[in-house]
């Protein structure tokens, strides 16, 4: 009878434990045959049986939620079931009651591998971005470098053991610690796990190992100097083992970067590679300018800020057209290269005349010298 009672009690405890590690309250949006009040901005959307297919347009395309009132602390686990045949990146942005503006500070990046099957990506937002706080008012996803992406489900959940473990794995293999941050900044972050750099755990392991060594060698040798010497040696070896693990982690990045580069560049001609590396549309415009403008002319590039510092790459590829280092609209120049210009003030200016046009947003102005 006693054994039966203990067994029932044990079974109950195990059930509770299983429920605790596997169950989590959640808010979810299932996009099978339904938009679930989500909307798109600057993108084409198709509602399919399997989910919502988003086709981004030029510029920034959003797919965003209806107004929400979600306490960030209660639902830190974000999961998204998504597929993209060509692979690319997805940014998840959110607005909060503290900060109602969507911007890069409140965002995470998800790398999508090319696949025709849905894959669930699970992240603990609190671990990835400390700005997941307060009341979440809306969520948006931005496909980047993708022709299309299909979303099956988006879910916000409470944490539990299983979800935390899964999000830890996603975090470790996520973009942080895998990519160079900023093209010119050149920071390669350490991989993180559960919101902390992986080194943090390693230092604890080393510390515990060292304490263990001290105890063990003192028990074995009964000599302080021997204990110190042997513990030191063993600890250094342990450090090198962990270091080797980190090195393999770094090499995994190299292999995946090479695979990515190879799928993009493989054995293409140098000029094609230059186009792919610079952005083909911009590279075509550069070629157009070099064809039309006499070599050795001094030029400046006028473009919308959201395109980033493309003038820097432009300077390299435009040569022998010359963009000097200290250039700007007031700098002495012969031509102004307008590539998606933010306005048409120079086009209307009496100091310039239209020289050549590639498309409506890509043209060349010639400066009229007094």
């Amino acid at each position: 009878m006693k054994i039966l009672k203990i067994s029932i009690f044990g079974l109950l405890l195990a059930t509770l434990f299983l429920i605790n590690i596997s169950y989590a309250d959640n808010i979810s949006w299932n996009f099978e045959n339904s938009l679930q009040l989500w909307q798109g901005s600057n993108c084409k959307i198709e509602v399919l049986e399997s989910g919502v297919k988003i086709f981004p347009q030029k510029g920034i395309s959003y797919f965003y939620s209806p107004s929400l009132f979600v306490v960030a602390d209660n639902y830190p686990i974000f999961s998204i079931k998504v597929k993209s045949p060509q692979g690319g990146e997805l940014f998840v942005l959110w607005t909060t009651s503290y900060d109602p503006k969507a911007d890069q500070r409140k965002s995470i990046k998800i790398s999508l591998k090319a696949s025709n099957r849905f894959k669930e990506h699970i992240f603990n937002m609190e671990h990835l971005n400390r700005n997941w706080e307060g009341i979440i008012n809306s969520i948006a996803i931005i496909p980047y470098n993708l022709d299309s992406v299909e979303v099956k489900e988006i879910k916000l959940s409470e944490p539990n053991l299983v979800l935390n473990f899964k999000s830890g794995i996603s975090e470790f293999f996520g973009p942080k610690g895998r990519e160079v941050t900023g093209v010119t900044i050149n920071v390669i972050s350490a991989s993180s796990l559960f919101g902390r750099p992986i080194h943090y755990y390693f230092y604890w392991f080393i510390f515990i190992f060292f304490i263990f060594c001290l105890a063990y060698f003192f028990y074995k040798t009964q000599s302080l100097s021997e204990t110190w010497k042997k513990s030191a040696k063993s600890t250094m070896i342990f450090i090198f083992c962990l270091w080797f693990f980190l090195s393999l982690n770094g090499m995994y990045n190299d292999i995946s970067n090479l695979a990515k580069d190879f799928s993009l560049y493989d054995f293409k001609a140098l000029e094609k590679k230059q186009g792919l590396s610079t952005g083909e549309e911009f590279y075509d415009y550069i070629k157009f300018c070099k064809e039309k403008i006499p070599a050795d002319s001094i030029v400046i590039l006028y473009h919308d800020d959201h395109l980033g510092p493309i003038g820097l790459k432009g300077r390299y590829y435009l040569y022998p057209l010359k963009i000097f280092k200290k250039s700007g609209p007031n700098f002495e120049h012969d031509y102004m290269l307008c590539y998606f210009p933010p306005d048409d003030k120079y086009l209307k200016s009496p100091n310039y005349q239209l020289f050549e046009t590639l498309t409506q947003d890509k043209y060349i102005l010639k400066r009229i010298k007094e």
Partner: protein
Amino acid sequence: MIFVMFLFAIILIYLLGNELISLALKGKKIDFFEKIGLSYGAGIFLIGYYILLLGIFNIKPNFLNVFIPLVVLISILYIANKILNYTVSFSFPKRETISVLAKVFLFFLILKIVLTFSLTIIKPEQTWDALERYGVIAKAAYFEGVNSGFVRDFIERVPPVISLAQTYIFVIVGKWHEILGKTIFPLFYLSLLFIFYSNLRKFIPKKLGIIFTAFLAFFPFLSYHATSGYYDLPQCFFYSISVLYLIRYIVSKDDEAFNVSLVFTIFSILIKRWGIYLFSLNVILFAIAFFDSNFIKNDKRISWKKVALFVIIPLLFSLPWYYFINRIPFFDLPEARDLLKTTVERSDTTPYLPSDSVNKIAIAFKQMYDRFFFRDTWNLLYFALIASIVFNFKQLFKRQYFYIFIAILLNMAIIYLYFISSPQAFKWLLDGTVLNRVAMYHVPLALYFIALLFSSEDKPGRVRS
């Protein structure tokens, strides 16, 4: 054909470097890998420097005015070495069986090198600075020479020797080919590994030599720079080699090591603007050794003439760049001005620093600590460095460890001072722009220090020359 010419260009670099290094080493037999690594560094710098000199005389580089003088120079050096009996001076590594562990590391080391080369040659230049600051110099110097207004506009703030070495590749292959041009960077990486390994092998067993060389190769930031086309890896290469050989000279009074150190110090000064700071660190290190040898230990191992040579010759060699920028070395660099200004301001306000400066000092320290130990990918280098110091504290003051330790400390100090010296530099520290790049210069030294201490086993001084 273009690839044949490219190979030819690389072989010429090695031939030139080999002759110069033979001269510097006075024909002393050295390890094969060491010779290859040193020859590459010396050859590529001299060629870039030569094209800079062409610029002074307003000559545009072309095949004839590059190739012929190069062959003449190689011949002169070859004859000089023959006359002085300094030729053919390397030995192949002895065949030794290595443990399974060393084989595993060797496998991953070779894999890493192959990956680094593949990542470089598969794509064109991608990083902003490598294109718009450095690549543009290489390209424009190829088409119109160094002395054009356009090129001068760019070399005003960066010594262009490495870009001009890329120009040399274009001149020899007869075409502007950016992928071939940037292949010089993984060759710096490979050469650094060769020299690092050879230096380690003078003190530690083969197995550990392979393991620590693999650790150097594995640093993601270092190998990334081998693919990126920035000047930081060459700066790391020239500086760390200059220090390794300087310390070899200080410890073992090996005159040939002094010559190599002098040559690489000359080169190091003209890679980036930071080179002038690194040069001053070398001078301080040498001055400490001089003081120690002449006034503390009183063994008169280091003469003042050597110290004077070590100061004057690198400065003289750096003059062509200053000709282009029309400035006085060091004192006219904006950061140096800020540094001096800050020092003066501080001495005015001593002992009370303004509260924002106190914050800045603390924040800078915290940032460096965070980035070195946690946030950025130097693996466990800095932790292992601290652990090595703690575990081997008694050994630290022995000559062969002490000077490397001082070199690392000086590097840390200059980085720290630089970042608190001006608001702009402080901003760069916070956003992480420059810290890892300037830290990279002392990373081989830190790893070398760890390797030596780990292998010391209370038997210091096993210096095999």
